């Protein structure tokens, strides 16, 4: 019993993490307070990081926790705390609730069925980490160096654009 459990432990953990991530994602849509939504999203991301770790892609798990939880969501939590806009009243959902739910069901059904039917056979063995950090780094800096440089250009453009947005707001505030 315990041996069978131990041999299937990674699959069991994977299913558990997937379930918890799904619960977190559902709570993200359902909860009202932005801070609780942020915490639900953070838990989803941490569970996804656990899934990546179980799949053997540890560097993506580290990216997930460091960049998404550590940078993006902390930024988001700071903004929620700084804004202090309390909106406990008013409807939670917009007028598009019914079309949105219908579209959600149709989307899940369509993609789910098509993925289910045409799933190719796996090339890698189970738990096989065919692309560890070494292989990733070598191919990243050899084959994809142009993309790497383009991302740095994109980041510079984003920083300049954020500064421009702040500058416009300051000018607006000084004129108004």
């Amino acid at each position, binding site marked *: 019993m315990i041996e069978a459990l131990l041999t299937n432990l990674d699959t069991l953990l*994977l299913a558990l993490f*997937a379930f918890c991530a*799904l619960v977190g*994602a*559902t709570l*993200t*849509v359902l909860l009202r307070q*932005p801070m609780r939504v*942020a915490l639900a*999203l953070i838990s*989803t991301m941490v569970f996804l990081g656990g*899934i990546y770790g179980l*799949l053997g*892609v540890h560097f*993506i798990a580290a*990216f*997930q926790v460091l*960049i*998404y939880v550590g*940078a*993006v969501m902390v*930024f*988001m939590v700071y*903004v*929620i705390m700084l*804004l202090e806009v309390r*909106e406990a009243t*008013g409807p939670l*959902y*917009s007028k*598009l609730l019914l*079309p*949105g*739910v219908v*579209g*959600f069901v149709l*989307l*899940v059904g369509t*993609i789910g069925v098509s*993925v*289910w039917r045409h*799933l*190719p056979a796996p*090339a*890698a063995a*189970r738990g*096989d980490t*065919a*692309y560890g950090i070494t292989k*990733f780094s070598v*191919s*990243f800096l050899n084959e994809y160096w142009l*993309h790497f440089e383009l*991302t740095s250009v*994109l*980041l510079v453009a*984003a920083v300049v654009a954020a500064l421009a*947005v702040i500058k*416009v*707001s300051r000018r607006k505030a000084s004129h108004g």
Partner: protein
Amino acid sequence: MDRTQLLLGLAIALFSLGLLGVIVRRNVLVMLMCMELMLNGVILSLVTFAQQTATTVGAVLVFLIFVVATAEIALAIPIVLLLVRDKHTLDLGAYNDLKG
């Protein structure tokens, strides 16, 4: 149900839930977070397919998506801050005059 199907199902569910949140929620910050949820679903599907085909291109794409998500948040948050400073609310219905 094998592992790939489970993970792809989860990826589809995350993407669709994120899209649902973007459509039905009224709070701008919650909409932003739902967009992050959609990106997470895409990343999970990329990782699953990359592991299935044993190639590195999926991991490279995931890295690029991380960068794009960071840039997106760095730009979206100041815009949301400006909107909130202007309208004093996070409700999307108050921004109806932003029709160009």
